[in-house]
């Protein structure tokens, strides 16, 4: 039915199969939209947040998906600025994943604020001292950059490309993409960093607070670093999942391995910096506030020292070692396990710097507070997943996302999934 708009000679699944797939994702999306509408119309009393948990699941989701979307800016940086030409075969997908992550983050932020209609106040009454202001400006600007980077991919659709204007527009946009990639890197450095700054500047919260350089706490640099390190792992992971679902190889191994190798070194150097930061925090920053390390990892039902070990050792050092070693990243399972651990590690890092900060008492006569999200919070957090599946499905079906697909799957032309 839609074969005329499916890109090139590549065959895709039948329309009814595709419709069924989209319907399943759409049902989850609608569930999330319903929860979103409840939050908008009835207010944030629909959540399990409270005055101890002003920040909760949604802020974690924002921080985590923006870190995971970091694959877009870092792959763009490697491809267009450093000149790693092989990465042209995965940069399209990295951009699409980044676009999904960033637009999802903005949707979640739109639900998370108590007065969404006043959301523009952050730009109009901007407090230049607030890290959240920096986040809002850079994040919005970068979403526009991602849209600009996404447009040429859309223009490559078979039918659109037949129109000379769009063909030329796409061609010209491709030729200046390095400018947008550089802009994206610049903006990403600041918003990934300022997201780290969001918790790092909280000098009233010793668990989060970090010293730093000028106005930037160390978490500013660690967040940018970890996003650049783990974002590509998420791109690799989603690529592998897409390959599994479609039953095709979409990107050559050397491309994946190059990205994995760079990611491994980034994770390795990041985790060294993270260890130094943690040791300094334990030895210098914390004692000055009257707290000891175990004050934050005991006397509560969930947050034990295991979470620090899990983040740094299991989900930091281990994936770095696997990806740095040639044998490790060339091993199919090694690569996937390392990518999963790296993604998990960055998610845990964002979790503790949001949720554990809220949970730990600072006043001596207060106690730990635990929290479990309401179904409305869970549904709206799953919403981006369904939204992402839909965007990826449409992009894969109608756009030439993977330049190597035809070469890797010659037998599927005019007959595959």
């Amino acid at each position: 039915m839609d074969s005329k708009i499916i890109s090139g000679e590549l065959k895709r699944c039948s329309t009814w199969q595709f419709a069924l797939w989209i319907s399943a994702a759409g049902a989850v999306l609608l569930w999330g939209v319903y929860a979103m509408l409840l939050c908008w119309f009835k207010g944030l009393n629909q959540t399990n947040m409270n005055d101890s948990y002003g920040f909760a699941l949604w802020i974690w989701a924002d921080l985590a998906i923006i870190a995971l979307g970091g694959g877009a800016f870092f792959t763009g940086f490697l491809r267009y600025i450093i000149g790693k030409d092989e990465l042209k075969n995965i940069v399209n997908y990295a951009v699409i994943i980044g676009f999904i992550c960033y637009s999802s983050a903005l949707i979640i932020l739109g639900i998370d604020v108590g007065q969404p209609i006043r959301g523009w106040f952050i730009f109009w009454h901007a407090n230049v001292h607030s890290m959240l202001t920096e986040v809002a400006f850079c994040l919005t600007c970068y979403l526009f950059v991602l849209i600009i980077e996404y447009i040429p991919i859309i223009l490559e659709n078979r039918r659109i490309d037949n129109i000379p204007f769009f063909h030329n527009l796409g061609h010209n946009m491709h030729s200046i993409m390095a400018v947008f990639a550089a802009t994206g890197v610049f903006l990403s450095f600041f918003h990934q960093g300022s997201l780290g700054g969001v918790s790092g500047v909280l000098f009233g919260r010793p668990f989060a607070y970090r010293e730093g350089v000028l106005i930037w706490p160390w978490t500013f640099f660690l967040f940018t670093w970890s996003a650049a390190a783990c974002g590509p792992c998420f791109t690799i992971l989603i690529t592998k999942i897409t390959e599994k679902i479609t039953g095709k190889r979409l990107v050559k191994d050397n491309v994946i391995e190059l990205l994995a190798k760079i990611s491994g070194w980034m994770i390795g150097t990041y985790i060294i910096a993270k260890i130094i930061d943690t040791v300094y925090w334990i030895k210098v920053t914390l004692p000055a506030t009257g707290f000891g390390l175990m004050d934050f990892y005991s006397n509560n039902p969930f947050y034990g020292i295991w979470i620090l070990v899990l983040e740094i050792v299991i989900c930091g050092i281990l994936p770095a070692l696997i990806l740095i070693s040639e044998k490790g990243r060339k091993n199919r399972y090694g690569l996937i396990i390392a990518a999963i651990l790296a993604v998990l590690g960055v998610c845990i890092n964002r979790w503790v710097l949001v949720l554990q900060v809220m949970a730990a008492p600072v006043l001596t006569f207060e106690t730990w507070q635990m929290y479990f999200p309401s179904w409305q919070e869970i549904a709206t957090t799953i919403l981006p997943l369904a939204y992402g599946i839909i965007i990826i499905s449409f992009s894969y079906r109608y756009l030439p996302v993977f330049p190597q697909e035809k070469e890797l799957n010659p037998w599927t032309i005019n007959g595959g999934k």
Partner: protein
Amino acid sequence: MKEEKSDKSAKKFGMVIDLDKCTGCGSCMVACMAENNVPFKEDESKKLVSITWMRVYRLTNGKSFPDTEICYLPKPCQHCGGKGEHGHSPCVSVCPATATDYNKETGIVSQIYTRCFGCRYCMAACPYHARYFNWWDPVWPKGMEEYLSPNVSVRMRGVVEKCSFCFHRYQLAKDKAYYEGRSDIGENEYQTACAQACPAGAITFGDLNDSGHAVYELKKNKNAFRLLERLQTNPKIYYLSSRQWIRRAGDNYLKNEK
């Protein structure tokens, strides 16, 4: 106790709360709610979602009978001045929309309800849990609207609120002084509702910079302390207690620290 620096020409309103006098009766909480149109719900048992600008905590020394000791600690917003009294309060510095502000003339941390868009970053930043979010729209029992104070705006769902040191009273006192041709106001012309309502006289309010105000001397008492001073939030609420364990409960100490 660390000495804070301050601009002597500016006022610095603050409180000294004598914990030896506080009986934990809760009059300050009630007076505060009535004065400031603080909303309440039918079920106020869930304290993490109820709004109490002034909240009285019950502290114990952790010892069993007969050595058990109790202390009641009223806790409003601490109106932190931040490091060096520059107004770099934990909350003011982080608000992305400048909806909370540090007034350098009075030292009061204000909340602009009509500008707050409910991101709750200030709540995450405040170590005192002095900020409250309106999870619901306020609903007043029938007829109670008539009792609301016309001097304080009622807050809507989705914004943060907190103790303002009854700032509207300061404005009214200033207006009265201006009308009478005076440039300044007296100590008794501006008092918070909680300070006036305390039957034990435990709460003293005034200008911490003015040697003519009672708080000026009280804060110098050897038993005076502030909550979480080590974090350098520089709060304007001082507490007095003759009992050492209570003073120690004001801050965190390392296990081997005396």
